[in-house]
Structure formats: C-alpha cells, structure tokens
C-alpha cells in the first residue's frame, strides 16, 4: 500500500520535472520538553512517560490546470499531551486527486466538505485540537445551471490513521434564487435555499437492542438578504440513532438554528437562537470523545479573545440545549467629537445556553436504553442552566502611538455539566450537586508605539470566581523589537484558588522569530489545566511545565 502511495506521489511529481504545474508545501512541527513539576502535578499524574514529545505534518499540493492532487504526511513521536492519544506513529493520512471538467468537479481520496451550516454533515480539520474527520471516498460537485448546485459524497471518515466503520452517503442541493429570478437582485434581494440528506450505514450487532443498520438525516435551509438585513435559518432531522452519546435511546433528533443580522457602516446587530435535541451524529454509534462526528453543532456563544475569560469556554451540548445570542456593536464616527480622530467602538454581547425540556415517557421511564428516551416540549425551557455570558467592550485609538481597550465579563458557568460532563437527569435528581460558577472579569489592554518601529503591548486581567478556579490575576507584556522578533512574558497568579496549595503562579516567556514565511516560536513555562477551544470545539489540556518549540513554514 505504501509503495503504491509513493508511486502515485512520484507520478504526480513527474510533470513538475518538465516545468508543468505548481507545487506548494505547508509545514508545521511542534515539540515540548516536559519538566517534572512537583507543585503543579504533585502525584505525577499528568507527567508523560517520555520527557520529549513531538508531532508535525507537511501538506504537499500539486496543481496543473484543472487537476490538483496532494498528500499530507503526519508524524506523532509521540503525540503531545492534551491531543487525542489515538494519533500514534507516522504516515500519509491524507491524499487526494481532484479534477474539474466543465461544470463538474470530481475528488477521489480524502476531502473536506460541508452541507449548509453542517447540522447533518461537516468533515473538517482543526489541527490545533487534533481534530480531523476527513472523508475517504469520492465526491462530486456539479453546477446544474440556473444557480442550482449539487454535491454528492460517499466514503468513510478518518479515525486517526484508519477509517471508521460506518459508510456515509450524502447529497446536497443549493439554489441561488437570484439566478433564475434576476428581478430579485434588481430589488436588492438575495435569496438561497437548500436541502440535504445523509445516510449512515453501520451493521448493528446487539443481543438486546435492535440497532438500525441505516440512519438517515435531512436538513433544509434558507437565507435571505435585503438591504442591510440578512436572515438565515436551518432545520435538521435525524431518525432514531441509538448511540453511546444518547444512552442508546430511539428518540429522533432535531436541530434548528436561526439568525438575523443588520449591518450598516458603524453599526452591527446580531440576533440568533437555536434548539438542539438529541443530534449527536457519528459514523460509529459507539464512538466517543471527538471521534467520527458526522455533523457539526455550533454553539451560540462568542469565543473569548483573552486568556482568563477563555478559561471558561462553552461548547455545544450535543444531547440537547437551547439558547440565544444578541450582539450590538456601534462605532462613534471617526473625526467626531466623541469618537475622536480614529473612532471609538462599543460592543455588547449577551448569550445564554440551557437544557431543553425533558419529561419522562408515558410509562414513567426516563432515558432508558432501548426506549424512546424522553418527551420534550419545544415551547418549554429546560431547568438546567449551562452557560450565560454578558460582556461589553470599549476600544479607542487615541493616536498613532497609543490605543486601548477595556472589556468586562459576567459569566455563569455550569462546571458540573461543562467540565465534569454530568448529564441533566443526574442533576435534576440531585439538584444540590449542580455547581454554577459566577465569574466576573475585566481586561485592560494597551498598545504603545515606541521609537524605531518597536511596539509594546500589555494586558492586565482579573477574574473573580466564587468557586472552581477561584480568583486569578494576569499580566502580559509583548515587546515587538522588530518585524522579525517578538518577546512576550506573562504570568497568571491563581491567588484565590479554593485549595491553598493550588494558589500558584503560571509564568510563561516566549520568543517568536519570523524569517520570511517561516515562524519559530520557543516558549518556557507552566501551562495550567484547562479547556482549549478553537472555533467552538474544545479539548481538555492537562497541566504541564516545560520548553515548547513550534515551527511553521510554507513554500
């Protein structure tokens, strides 16, 4: 198999020898030398078996005319702490060939794809989190004319260096209505509608449960823009899909997301709401953690930009949640008396997420394997609060050499659900075990322009919490010496941790060097235990102390 892959690569490179086509390379390598820290990790619970762990990848892409092919070599020797331990060894984990023929695009091998907003199908990668559920199979994308586009996919999903058991087949139709009805755009109206269907096949073997071999899911969506307004919605439905996630119940899944925005120069408004009920969808019903997700259920909260508020992240509760978000942003105009020369920006954001209504079935059972699980009323809210975030920021640039930003946060964070992973039913049975942490935080950021094109950026952060991590303060200084060199130092002091022995400092110093497209970063210090998120997906990061090295480059 490996010989065949190498032969394919060599074949793909042949035209390059003759000056045809183009090759691009993307490279990243990360490593960490771990030091034992008896204060941070007294029992050595998190200390790895090896002092030095490293991983990396290189994506090599060849393109010639309408033909593209590429592969990604990955190595984990061994995988770094906090990444999924399923990544072991090295090999070519991603390879594909793609060509365009008229209005049709064909892909064989690995590919990433998304239907609508991903409620029933999204294959994607987040390398920073170690997430990759690339499809391995075939894909067809075609333009049918009059604004109608079709996508068809078939294959299995990547599971580390193998593929999952389930086979996925899906089709998506999207229709840009302004093409068959040009009068719409004449009136300033842009409208799209779409529908998709995905089927999962996995044989069911269970002595007690009659597991479905095929699970189907469908979704419809619409998007309309007129003038400064935009409204976008998607509804998804999945037939019964007993799985590890839902406790092997037979209840169908549903999801609805709707968003309204208004965007005018100097003013922005966003209103969104969503409801998710039993929508975990994986290509293996027994998969856990981040493995083999077929769909993507976005959370309705805003990712935080600063370190201390980011210690309280939110990710969608796939078995059920409802919530909403509102964001208003306004810029006092540049040159106005109040706005100053460069304008002043205010942003207010509020979001909430909580459980959905869940009632016992008519026979009195609740969430029992093999049953329909529970009953739920769309018009009723659940009783378990998951997350609430109200934050407001003010930012102003006073001159070319000084700008500042101040942000306040008021968070309610259900640690029992979001960190400990306890389900609603358990909490409702024992209401006193629910631990909702109230966090109030403030961040003040300043940026100064110094002589010789140097800059100094500082952050002062304070987070006061009535439990869990307790009170914390943080200071950061980032000194850009030149366009090639940056030095940064920060310290988080967890001075109010409920356990006195955990009232620790977490200092980190880093040096970043840029050389053309190559970026080197060396850091040394303590990383506290927490949850690291990118784009709404999170993973738990264990505490560590040591020297980290990261190199990124492209050609």
């Amino acid at each position, binding site marked *: 198999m490996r010989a065949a892959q*190498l032969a394919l*690569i*060599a074949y793909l490179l042949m035209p390059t*020898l003759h000056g045809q086509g*183009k*090759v*691009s*390379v*993307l490279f*990243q390598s990360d490593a960490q030398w771990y030091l034992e820290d008896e204060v941070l990790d007294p029992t050595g619970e998190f200390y790895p078996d090896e002092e030095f762990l490293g991983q990396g990848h290189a994506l*090599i892409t060849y*393109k010639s005319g309408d033909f593209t092919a590429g592969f990604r070599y990955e190595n984990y020797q061994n995988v770094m702490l906090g990444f999924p331990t399923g990544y072991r060894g090295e090999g070519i984990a991603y390879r594909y060939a793609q060509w*365009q023929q008229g209005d049709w695009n064909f892909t064989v091998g690995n590919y990433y794809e*998304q239907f609508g*907003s*991903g409620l029933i199908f*999204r294959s*994607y990668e987040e390398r920073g989190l170690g997430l990759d559920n690339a499809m391995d199979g075939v894909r067809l994308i075609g333009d049918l004319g009059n604004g109608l*586009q079709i996508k068809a996919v078939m294959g299995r999903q990547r599971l580390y260096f193998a593929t999952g058991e389930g086979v996925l087949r899906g089709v998506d139709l999207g229709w840009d209505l*302004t093409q068959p009805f040009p009068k719409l755009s004449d009136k300033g109206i*842009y409208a*799209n509608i779409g529908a998709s269907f995905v089927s999962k096949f996995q044989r069911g073997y269970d002595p007690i449960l009659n597991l479905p071999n095929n699970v189907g899911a469908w979704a419809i969506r619409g*998007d309309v*823009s007129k003038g400064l307004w*935009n409204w*976008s919605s998607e509804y998804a439905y999945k037939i019964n899909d007993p799985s590890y996630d839902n406790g092997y119940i037979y209840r169908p899944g549903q999801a609805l997301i709707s*968003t309204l*925005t208004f*965007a005018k*120069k*100097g*003013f*922005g408004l*966003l209103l*969104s709401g969503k409801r998710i009920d039993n929508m975990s969808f994986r290509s293996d019903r027994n998969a856990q953690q981040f493995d083999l997700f077929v769909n993507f259920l*976005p959370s309705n909260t*805003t*990712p935080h*930009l600063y370190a201390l508020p980011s210690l309280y992240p939110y990710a969608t509760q796939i078995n059920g949640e409802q919530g909403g978000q509102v964001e208003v*942003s*306004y*810029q006092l105009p*540049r040159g106005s008396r109040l706005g100053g020369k*460069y*304008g002043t*920006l205010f*942003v207010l954001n509020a979001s909430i997420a909580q459980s959905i209504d869940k009632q016992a079935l008519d026979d009195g059972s609740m969430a029992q394997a093999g049953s329909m699980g529970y009953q739920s009323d769309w018009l009723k809210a659940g009783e378990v609060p998951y997350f609430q975030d109200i934050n407001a920021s003010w930012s102003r640039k006073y001159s*070319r050499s000084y700008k500042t930003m101040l942000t306040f946060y008021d968070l309610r964070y259900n640690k029992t659900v979001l960190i400990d992973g306890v389900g609603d039913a358990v909490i409702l049975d024992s209401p006193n075990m629910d631990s909702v942490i109230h966090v109030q935080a403030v961040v003040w950021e300043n*940026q100064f322009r110094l002589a010789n*094109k140097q*800059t100094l950026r500082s952050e002062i952060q304070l987070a006061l919490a009535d439990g869990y991590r307790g009170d914390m303060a943080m200071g950061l200084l980032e000194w*850009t010496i030149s*366009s090639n060199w940056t030095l940064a130092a920060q310290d988080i002091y967890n001075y109010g941790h409920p356990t006195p022995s955990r009232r620790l400092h977490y200092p980190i110093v880093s040096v*970043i060097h*840029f050389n053309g*497209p190559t*970026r080197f970063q060396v850091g040394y210090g303590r990383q506290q235990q927490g949850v690291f998120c990118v*784009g709404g997906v999170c993973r738990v990061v264990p505490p560590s102390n040591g020297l980290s090295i990261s190199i990124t480059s*492209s*050609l």
Partner: protein
Amino acid sequence: MKQFLSLCLLTFSLTVVSQGLPDVTIQTLKKQSIKASELTHDGPMVVSFWATWCKPCISELDAMADYHEDLVADANLRMVAISIDNARTSARVAPFVASRGWNYDVYIDANSDLRRAMGVNNVPHTFLLNAQGEIVWESNRYVPGEEEVLVEQIEALAHNEKLKLNRGKIIRGQSTQQ
C-alpha cells in the same frame, strides 16, 4: 521512509511559487457563491485571512483601515478579507465588519477550503498579489507595526506596476511608430 524523504526533497527542490487564487468556492456576505479565482484586480491586491475570534487578525485589519482609503486612491489597492469563521461565528462577520467601518471586500471560507488551498496554517495570514495575480509577498503573523511593512510593500508594488505600465506604453508607442 528514505524513499519518502527523497521525494519530499525532490518536491522542495522543484517548488514553484504559487500564483493567483485557486479555483475554490467561497461566499459573499450575501451568501452568494463565487470562485476565489475570480478575485482579480488591475493593481496591488491584498488577501488577508482572518476570523472574528482571532485577536491579531482584528488588530491587523483595524490598523490597515487607517491606510486603506489613501492606498485605494494612490496605489489602486484592492483589499480582500477572507473570514475563516465557521458556522458558529460566520453570522457575526457582516455586523462585525460593518461596525468597524472596514471598507474591504469580505468573503467567507466557512470550511477552510480556500485556506487549505492557499497553504494557510494559522491566521492571520496575508498575501500581496500583483496585477498578474502573482503572490509577491506574504506574512503569516501580525505584530503591531507590521502594517507599515505591508503598506511599504503595496506602495513599492504600485510604483513598479506604474513603471511597467509606462514602459509598456512606451514600447507599444515605439512599435506603432515603427
């Protein structure tokens, strides 16, 4: 393994700098699908990959906003901002951009197809293309002050483009006379 490394070395040695934007579908803020390869300009064009959750990206685009109007007028600049926000945050992009007063051409690459095709590992990542669609400069970071480097590159490119244009006119003029 040796074979593989040899192939990698061969690949590196044969590397040709990529040109123009790939033939990948992205979306406008009105959710209209377009091919990135259709994004062309008869002068310097900046293509900046960013996200609403990326602090350095926002700082960079904020910083460039101070120069944008002048660069459009003086250097014939087209500024394109490609958001890699996924379904969680992509709806924020339009109000986010509007409230900051950014006058850039903003598109959404919700599943990172263009990002992958252009070899972008992390954001921010900024490319500068000439009128022929060739990438003449790129940067995979933003640190305060970096915008001045980009502005210098844009101005230098615009100056060269003008020289080329004038040279072309002169040559064409001579050939006409001959």
